[in-house]
């Protein structure tokens, strides 16, 4: 580009031909297309300046050369060379305009196209470069990630390796521990066997020693070992001792067995008694079962039961007889049999009865359930009960609701007490939902307010009327005054006299009117009323002092409650107040006339507002 510039600057000094060739070289379209976007943009900027150069390219003198050159160029670019032709090659040089224009147009078109395609390519390149950038970034990021993962992986591998190592060592230690345990167990077992063996050995030794000791003692014939009795005693039972013979032995055996036998017999007797008792209990149970079951049973069943009962009772008798019998072997056997027999029968019958009782109970159970179901389904008695229950449920629900309501109210009250709400509307809302009474009262108040408002509306109407009238009167008065002044003026002999008179009079009137204004803020409302009354008695003063004192007046009339007090009041009151002031501003001239009514109204209103505040 720099080169280009240099050629451009140099150009005027060099011969045209050469320059054109150079420029041609430079300005070849293919070259142009290959330019970078940055180059192109600078080329674009150049085009304007190059025009000046090009204009220098074709001068008056070298027109034919230029045309030929152009033609050549056009040919090389593929346009018809005949398009641009010097109408007369020599002498009169002029352009064949139509083809030249066409050519130019085409060139322009081409240029535009190329420009467009260039632009497109540029944007495309931008896009692709940005995409490339993005891809590069992502690539680098991915590379980083890959690195990170690689590192992580290596770390994990390392930890795994360590864990494996640990595991291996642990396994080894476990194995050694197991071995240890096994060894210890075997040691314990061997110790135990050794201990028992030793114990046995020691015991044997000790018995041997004892034996030896005994032998020694016997051999030694211990002199001291002796009994020294004054005289031998008789046996406790008085009998003489007997020789040890086989007979005695047999007797001992016999006695032993006798005692054993007696013991067994005693035990058997006790068991028998117990058995009898149990049987009695069973019998009674059975009888009771039968008596429970029989009334509803058929005759045959009852008979059977009776039968079995009789049989059992006979068995019992038999058993009783048996127990009374002497206890010899054969009888024992017989009794055993009978016992078994009786027991079987008894248990069988009991089982039967029990089964029957069970089934009966089950039947009863099912019946009871059926009855219950039927009662539940269709019982007329139960319908009112259901209703009653529903009613109860409903009432309970209501009670619960009421309780909830009360609770929420209490909560709200608490909330209100805890954090006084400055938002008028929410306060009103809270008041609303606080109690029904409150609502009622509020409604009452609202009604009162409405009434008052209506009153006030009426009053205002009157005011407006009065204002209109006053306006008329004022007009008349102005006219009168003008007349009077005119008369005065006309009557005056000297101008100075008249001037002094007029100046002396106006301050007087002003002073009179300003007096109440000064006092109003400092004196109580009632007092100011009376004062204002006197002050406003002169219509002239009223007209003078009216404009600045409107707000004061309203304040004195309690039409505008104090800011502090109004802040607690309802928003509606505030709005009403505003409208009131607007109206009253309109009515300023007339206020003296309707002061009395105003005052009344305001007193009512203030009462209301006070109530409001209290609420």
């Amino acid at each position, binding site marked *: 580009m720099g080169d280009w510039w240099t050629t451009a600057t140099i150009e005027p000094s060099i011969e045209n031909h050469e320059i054109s060739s150079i420029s041609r070289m430079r300005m070849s379209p293919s070259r142009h297309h290959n330019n970078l976007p940055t180059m192109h943009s600078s080329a674009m900027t150049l085009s304007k300046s190059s025009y000046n150069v090009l204009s220098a390219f074709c001068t008056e003198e070298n027109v034919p050369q230029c045309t030929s050159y152009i033609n050549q160029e056009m040919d090389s670019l593929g346009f018809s060379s005949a398009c641009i032709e010097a109408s007369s090659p020599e002498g009169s040089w002029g352009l064949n305009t139509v083809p030249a224009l066409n050519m130019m147009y085409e060139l322009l078109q081409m240029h535009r196209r190329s420009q467009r395609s260039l632009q497109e390519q540029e944007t495309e390149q931008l896009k692709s470069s940005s995409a490339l950038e993005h891809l590069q970034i992502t690539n680098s990021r991915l590379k980083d990630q890959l690195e990170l993962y690689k590192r992580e992986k290596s770390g994990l591998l390392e930890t795994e390796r360590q864990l494996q190592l640990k595991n291996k060592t642990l396994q080894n230690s476990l194995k050694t521990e197991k071995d240890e345990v096994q060894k210890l167990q075997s040691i314990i077992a061997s110790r135990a066997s050794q201990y028992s063996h030793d114990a046995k050995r020691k015991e044997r030794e000790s018995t041997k020693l004892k034996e030896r000791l*005994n032998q020694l003692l016997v051999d030694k014939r211990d002199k001291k*070992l002796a009994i020294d009795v*004054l005289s*031998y*005693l*008789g*046996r406790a039972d008085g009998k003489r001792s007997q020789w040890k013979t086989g007979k005695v032995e047999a007797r001992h055996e016999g006695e*032993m067995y006798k*005692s054993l036998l007696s013991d067994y017999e005693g035990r058997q007797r006790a068991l028998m008694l117990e058995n009898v008792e149990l049987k009695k209990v069973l019998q009674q149970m059975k009888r009771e079962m039968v008596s429970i079951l029989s009334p509803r049973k058929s005759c045959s069943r009852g008979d059977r039961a009776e039968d079995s009962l009789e049989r059992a009772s006979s068995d019992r008798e038999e058993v009783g007889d048996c127990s009374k019998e002497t206890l010899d072997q054969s009888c024992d056997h017989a009794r055993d049999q009978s016992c078994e027999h009786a027991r079987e029968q008894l248990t069988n019958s009991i089982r039967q009865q029990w089964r029957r009782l069970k089934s009966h109970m089950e039947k009863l159970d099912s019946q009871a359930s059926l009855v219950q179901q039927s009662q539940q389904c269709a019982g007329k008695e139960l319908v009112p009960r259901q209703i009653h229950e529903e009613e109860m449920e409903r009432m309970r629900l209501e009670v619960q609701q009421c309780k909830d309501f009360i609770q929420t109210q209490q909560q709200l009250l608490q909330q209100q007490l805890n954090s006084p709400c400055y938002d008028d509307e929410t306060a009103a809302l809270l008041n609303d939902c606080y109690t029904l009474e409150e609502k009622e009262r509020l409604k009452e108040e609202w009604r009162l307010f409405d009434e008052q408002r209506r009153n006030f509306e009426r009053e205002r109407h009157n005011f407006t009327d009065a204002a209109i009238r006053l306006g008329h009167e004022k007009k008349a008065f102005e006219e009168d005054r003008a007349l009077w002044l005119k008369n005065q003026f006309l009557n005056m002999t000297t101008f100075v006299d008249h001037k002094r008179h007029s100046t002396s009079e106006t301050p007087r009137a002003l002073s009179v009117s300003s007096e109440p204004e000064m006092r109003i803020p400092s004196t109580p409302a009632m007092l100011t009323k009376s004062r204002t009354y006197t002050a406003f008695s002169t219509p002239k003063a009223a007209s003078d002092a009216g404009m600045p004192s409107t707000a004061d007046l309203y304040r004195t009339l309690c039409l505008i409650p104090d800011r502090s007090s109004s802040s607690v009041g309802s928003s509606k009151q505030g709005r009403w107040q505003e409208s009131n002031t607007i109206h009253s501003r309109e009515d300023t001239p007339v206020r003296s006339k309707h002061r009395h009514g105003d005052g009344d109204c305001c007193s009512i209103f203030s009462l209301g507002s006070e109530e409001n505040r209290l609420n």
Partner: protein
Amino acid sequence: MNFSEVFKQSNQLCRVSPDGKYLATCVQYRLVVRDVNTLQILHLYTCLDQIVHMEWSSDSLFILCAMYKRGLVQVWSLEQPDWYCKIDEGSIGLVSSRWSPDGRHILNTTEFHLRVTVWSLCTKAVSYIKYPKACQKGIDFSRDGCYMALAERRDCRDYVSVFVCDDWHLLRHFETETQDLAGVEWSPNGCVLAVWDSCLEYKVLLYSLDGRLLSTFSAYEWSLGIKSLAWSPSSQFLAIGSYDEKVRILNHITWKKVTEFDHPATINNTKAVVYKEVERKPVVGSPDLSIQQHITMGSTLFNTQSKYEICPLPVQVPVVKPDLDRANPKVGVSSMAFSSDNRYLATKNDSMACVVWVWDMQRLGLLAVLEQTSAVRCFQWDPRRPRLALCTGNAKLYLWSPAGCVSVQVPAEGGFQVQSVTWHCSGDSLILLGKEQLCLCYMEVGEEEDDIK
């Protein structure tokens, strides 16, 4: 309730004769025999050395006094004060001496349990029984005095020999299936012999008189086993107290467990009544205590008053954690006793030394718990009535009956501390033994119901 004056005694040797007429006490080397009712000294015998063991013969005619260190036994007669008998075991030594049930033989066990010598007072005959086993209860006589069971150890195996006491005839001799036999005990009816293993193994074997094995019972393995065993007077129940702080009751028909009584640290059995002894210190400086009262109260002024209070359930019983690493840990049921009418069982768990448990054997459940302020030394049932006497080593006697519980201050001077109690066989009086003294306590038969509140 009346108390006698205090007498001296030594070695806690004080026995009432089986017929209930005499009271024999030992004071050093002297033996004093008194009339139980009058407490007059009837006889005074002087032995050769300090008496270590003393025992009445079954017919209440003779008294045996043993001096183990010297290996001497002296026998005295009540009927013939001049009569004497002296048995010298010589150099072999003596560790135990006892009467045979007939009152005419004396069984001496020599040192090292080398043998048991049976000395007859009727004849010159001397019998030896070899291989007696040194164990918790190696010898037991049946209640009727007919048979004697003796534990033996031969060739590292346990045997039981049953002798006829009449002529020391060996009736049965059988090997028992025990590792290390710890004791033998006859059932009160004399037909069943209970044999139990040492504490290392929970095992009870029941043998018939003729040596047949009736049954074996083992509640658990691999833990310390039996600590005590008791037959009910009717032979109907066998109570086994063990180191797991439980009592298991076996029946006499199937020899299976009927029930087991647990001794929990927290009592919440609603059917049980928990009596807790509460001590009250007398207020010394209180104005209402006159001088006269001071004098009458005497020594009791320094003793604390106590009474029983019924605790609302559940009750936490004080438990002393035993050192299980040492031998004979203080845990488990160490003593049990059935009342004479078989209705109640009193037990004591060593880890709860202050507590006596009374169980109802009809209901097979806990009936009462007596929580004392100090460790229970001894308890014994009245031989006639369901009444339990116990002492805790202080100057008080405690009585329990189904009607309630009472603690009685012993009005003896000089810090009389009741170490053990013994009922007179009539159940009308109690012998209270202190460290060096003794005292009789008479129950007023007619007013006993008033005493027991």
